[in-house]
């Protein structure tokens, strides 16, 4: 304090100003830490509650039985798990090859071309289109001409949603492969298409696969595009031309029902879905964290 009083007035003013600035600095730090805690709280709450409710309602019957009619206790979601599997298989068959091919085009053939930039931009924008809109488009495109809901329509809706995500991640991963790897292949006389498929794509494959897993995980939890394409089903069905059950759809129906036993099943289903997704996201992070390409810059 003694030194402060000895200072000329302007410096003294700056010193007290300095005190204010330090206080503001601490307040801002506290606000940032506080908001982080506030954001983490609901996540931890969601996970804790989900684990608690889900684990306590999960049992063997959940994986082996089909839903019971209203009023009967018990039952499971075996048909929904199978249905989700079929839907995701159709979606992956459609989305993965087209998505990867699109990424190859942008990264390998379209570098610095206006068209490639436009495709990249459109893919990003398409990523943000609400999934329910995809549902409507597939409804008018497939369900209306066929005159019935079907697993096929649901799978196509999910597949279309996978394409932009996979295209973008494939492109990013391929761009990380150094050019001299490609030139080495070309120098050995390998045709370009062969070099792209078995040199570049193969070098980037861990990253490409994780990108596909990410798209898969995202699509696995989608409900909205299935509402009027796959529709849902209370019984066993493996027919691609018939309505099929799906895990997220079943959770939605059960969550809005007035029955406690169905609520219990909804929690169990949510836990299974979350475990599936968390495992794939963790896998993605693990692979990406280890460096997608060993030795590549």
């Amino acid at each position, binding site marked *: 304090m003694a030194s402060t009083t000895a200072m000329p007035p302007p410096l003294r003013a700056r010193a007290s100003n300095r005190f204010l600035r330090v206080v503001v600095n601490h307040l801002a730090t506290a606000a940032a830490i506080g*908001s982080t805690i506030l*954001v983490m709280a609901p996540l931890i709450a969601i996970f804790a509650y989900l684990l608690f409710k889900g684990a306590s309602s999960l049992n063997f019957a959940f994986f082996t039985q089909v839903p019971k009619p209203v009023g009967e206790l018990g039952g499971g979601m075996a048909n929904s798990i199978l249905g989700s599997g079929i839907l995701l298989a159709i979606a992956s068959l459609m989305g993965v090859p087209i998505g990867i091919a*699109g990424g190859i085009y*942008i990264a390998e053939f379209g570098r610095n071309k206006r068209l490639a930039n436009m495709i990249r931009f459109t893919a990003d924008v398409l990523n943000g289109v609400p999934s329910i809109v995809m549902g409507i488009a597939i409804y008018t495109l497939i369900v209306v001409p066929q005159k019935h809901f079907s697993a096929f329509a649901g799978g196509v809706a999910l597949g279309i949603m996978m394409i932009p995500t996979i295209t973008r991640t494939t492109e990013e991963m391929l761009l990380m492969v150094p*050019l001299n790897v490609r030139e080495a292949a070309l120098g050995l006389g390998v045709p370009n*298409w062969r070099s792209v498929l078995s040199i570049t794509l193969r070098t980037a494959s861990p990253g490409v696969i994780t990108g596909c897993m990410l798209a898969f995980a995202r699509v696995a939890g989608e409900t909205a595009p299935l509402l009027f394409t796959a529709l849902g089903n209370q019984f066993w069905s493996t027919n691609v031309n018939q309505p099929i059950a799906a895990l997220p759809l079943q959770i939605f129906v059960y969550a809005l029902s007035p029955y406690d036993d169905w609520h219990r099943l909804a929690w169990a289903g949510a836990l299974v879905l979350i475990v599936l997704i968390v495992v794939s996201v963790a896998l993605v992070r693990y692979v990406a964290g280890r460096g997608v390409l060993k030795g590549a810059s």
Partner: protein
Amino acid sequence: MPRVAGQADVQQADNTSSSGAEPSPSPVRTYLLNCGSSSLADRAFSALMLVCALSIFAIVLLILVELISGSKLTIQKFGMSFFFGSAWDPVNGNFGALPFIYGTVVSSILALIIAVPLAVGVAIFLTEMCPDWLRGFLAFFTELLAAIPSVVYGLWAIFVLIPLLRQYLNPFLIKTLGWSGIFAGPNYGIGMMAAGVILSIMILPIISSLTREVMSAVPHAQREAVLALGATRWEMIRMGVLRNARIGIVGAIILGLGRALGETMAVTMVIGNRPEIARSLLAPGYSMASVIANEFSEASDELYLSALIEIGLALFIVTIIVNALARVLVWAVTRGAPVRGT
């Protein structure tokens, strides 16, 4: 002269091979690509890849064409008045989308008001303050939050969030701010407020991770320069980082808005599904996406279906515009920034 040109060539070739993602291929490579027996196969391959890449345009066009042809009936019958009418009467064939537009806009804005300060706070903490060991963990957690399916958020909201709102937050709001009319009326729990809160939780990770990306694209020299002038850490963040990153942060916020506008399942489960425009935020409402989700499969006549598809068309166009805007803004900041492995 020729010698210099040759040197430049060598240098260029050297550049392309050493620094990974150098865009222009060397002349040697271009020559090799265009000769030999494989050039036909190569052309066919690149054409095939091009077709797959173009499928992304095709999808956008396809959605647009399907939605427009599906909503022809209501477009012809109501024209623009469809978006300003507030009647929703499927029995008499009278449709107006205003209550849904109102619900979507209000719940999204509410979500942004809650989420933006928190998301920016988290991003600041993660980029500027967080110790390294915690950063990876927290980033993983926020990513996880983004990966939880919408329907699970809805489930949690029904059984945990809504009882909490009904018991604690809503009575408090009614008591303190009830006079304004914005927080008034019967306390159902479900309603616009619940939709806003669950939406804010859902868009938070997106906004915060993009903000983080934009903030880490600000060069370190900026931070060091501000610190060297004697700034405190907060002043450094405010002047050196936030000011440089503001365009990108706005982009991140708009991207979050796009997500909120199109969010379907969680909102459908908590908003109350009543097509009316109420002054109170605690009253039940309806949103564009949730009216489609609820009524599409039971829409019996063609006019009804067409009205729902037209709502979908409006949603599609609005989210396309919002997302395009957001991408342009984010790119404006992160373009040129080095690729960072997190």
